[in-house]
């Protein structure tokens, strides 16, 4: 074949050749240490904790051992799981609203420097005001307790998404922007094909931070609200157990919050990995 520029193909061979890494139980062999090492550290620490509690005979109302906490979690699962569900749904709803509002606002900011300059400081004010300080006001103003909790969690979660996405939308390669201009792309096309993809890694980094923050926001707001009755989240269970000196249950609730946070973080990291794995430096192994 003598099409122009075609002979160069010969020097590249006809097709790329791939060698696959060995896998164990569906995961690449190199991924296992990353899972097993932290797990081992965790188990060792729990074991040490249990030993310390037993050897020193620390009473459970001061420091319960992990085994007691686990059995409490098992026995009280009915109440605790209900609370877990409430806290989680508030966090996730707040995160969802933060994503929608943060991205929408970032896109608005990207349309004009003036809009960004005018409104960004207020987003910063919202961010630096401690949520504990405004939560009581919001709870007074908003009749619905669930809704007021959601608003508090949203305030905490929304800023990293807004600021990261704004930065990302403005970080599109200058020459690529020129290229789009050259081909007379509309504003919308430039946004869709260039700015949004360029912002994706930034957005995902923000999302990972916001995921944890939305949980923290929800828990803090619950503490402030201290709602009683049936629809109470994990923070209320901690308060309640504190009053009743049911310390193992308090720890159980605390564990559940931490584990939820870890699970949210892992899910978002996995999402980020799925989206970026083929192209972004952060998701790639260094090979050189």
């Amino acid at each position, binding site marked *: 074949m003598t099409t122009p520029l075609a002979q160069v193909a010969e020097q590249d061979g006809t097709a790329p050749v791939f060698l696959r890494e060995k896998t164990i139980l569906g995961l690449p062999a190199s991924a296992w240490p990353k899972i097993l090492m932290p797990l081992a550290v965790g188990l060792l620490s729990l074991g040490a904790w249990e030993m310390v509690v037993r050897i020193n005979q620390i009473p459970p109302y001061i420091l319960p051992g992990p085994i007691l906490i686990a059995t409490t979690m098992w026995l009280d699962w009915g109440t605790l799981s209900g609370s877990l569900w409430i806290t989680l749904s508030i966090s996730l709803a707040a995160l969802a609203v933060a994503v929608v509002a943060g991205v929408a606002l970032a896109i608005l900011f990207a349309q004009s420097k003036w809009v960004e300059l005018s409104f960004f400081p207020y987003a910063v004010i919202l961010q630096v005001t401690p949520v504990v300080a405004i939560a009581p006001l919001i709870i007074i103003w908003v009749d619905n307790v669930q809704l007021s909790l959601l608003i508090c969690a949203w305030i905490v979660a929304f800023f990293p998404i807004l600021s990261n996405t704004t930065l990302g939308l403005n970080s599109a390669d200058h020459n690529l922007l020129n*290229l789009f201009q050259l081909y007379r792309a509309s504003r919308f096309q430039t946004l869709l094909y260039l700015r949004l993809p360029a912002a994706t890694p930034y957005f995902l980094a923000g999302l990972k931070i916001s995921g944890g923050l939305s949980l923290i926001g929800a828990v803090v707001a619950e503490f402030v609200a201290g709602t009683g009755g049936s629809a109470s989240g994990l923070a209320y269970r901690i308060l309640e157990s504190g009053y009743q000196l049911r310390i193992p249950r308090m720890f159980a609730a605390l564990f559940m919050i931490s584990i939820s946070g870890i699970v949210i973080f892992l899910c978002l990291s996995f999402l980020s990995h799925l989206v970026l794995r*083929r192209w972004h430096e952060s998701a790639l192994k260094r090979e050189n």
Partner: protein
Amino acid sequence: MTAFANAAKLQERPATRPVVSCRGVAKVFSNGTLALQNVDLDIKHHQFVSLLGPSGCGKSTLLRLIAGLGEPSAGEIDWPADREGDAHALSFVFQEPTLMPWATAIKNVMLPLKIARMSADEARGRAADALRLVGLSAFENSYPRELSGGMKMRVSIARALVTRPQVLLMDEPFAALDEITRFKLNNDLLRLWQDSNFTVVFVTHSVFESVFLSERIVVMAARPGRIIEDIEVAAPYPRDNDYRTSPLYNEHCRSASAALESAMAHHAHHG
């Protein structure tokens, strides 16, 4: 004898109206740099023109102005053969590959067609053709970071060709490549240019490359950037590796080098 034959060959070319003409073009950047001063340049239909000059003499600046990326500070750039509002008359190959890292090679090549709202199937077909043209069919689904520097540059060239441009503006497209790849791409670009009907403005700082490729070499000097010489390279096409070793080629290289040297000397006097 050859020189005479060439002159005849050059005269055979049809259509002599300029595709683009620059009149008294100047460019001052916001920091006060006078990058271009009083540039007059007519580029004819289907001409292969090289802009040759030392680093920093304003070659990229001029090319970008021609492309409409930025306004000249003085003078004007006119496209008499009016472009009939066709967004695809022009293609640009940047000094760097400038690919979208999140898109595969073929998606990158499809971009200009996608912007022009061509149907995905048709765009895919044409992009595949363009990639075949640059010898990268096997790498359609590779991401830019999985390609070598030369391969990325070829994807970038495929993207410029996919719109079948009337004017192809190239900013040192092969500067970062090894010599073997560069020679091949030089040959292939020439063949493509002869088979098609487009005009090429090719920025380079290599005397050899400009003499091998172009019919006309516009030599520029720096500080302020300006045109100091306009050389005609009267050698017949097709030009192949025999041309690279011919006395005619040597002769043209010598005169282009002399022009470039005087450009550098200008630079030294003023700087």
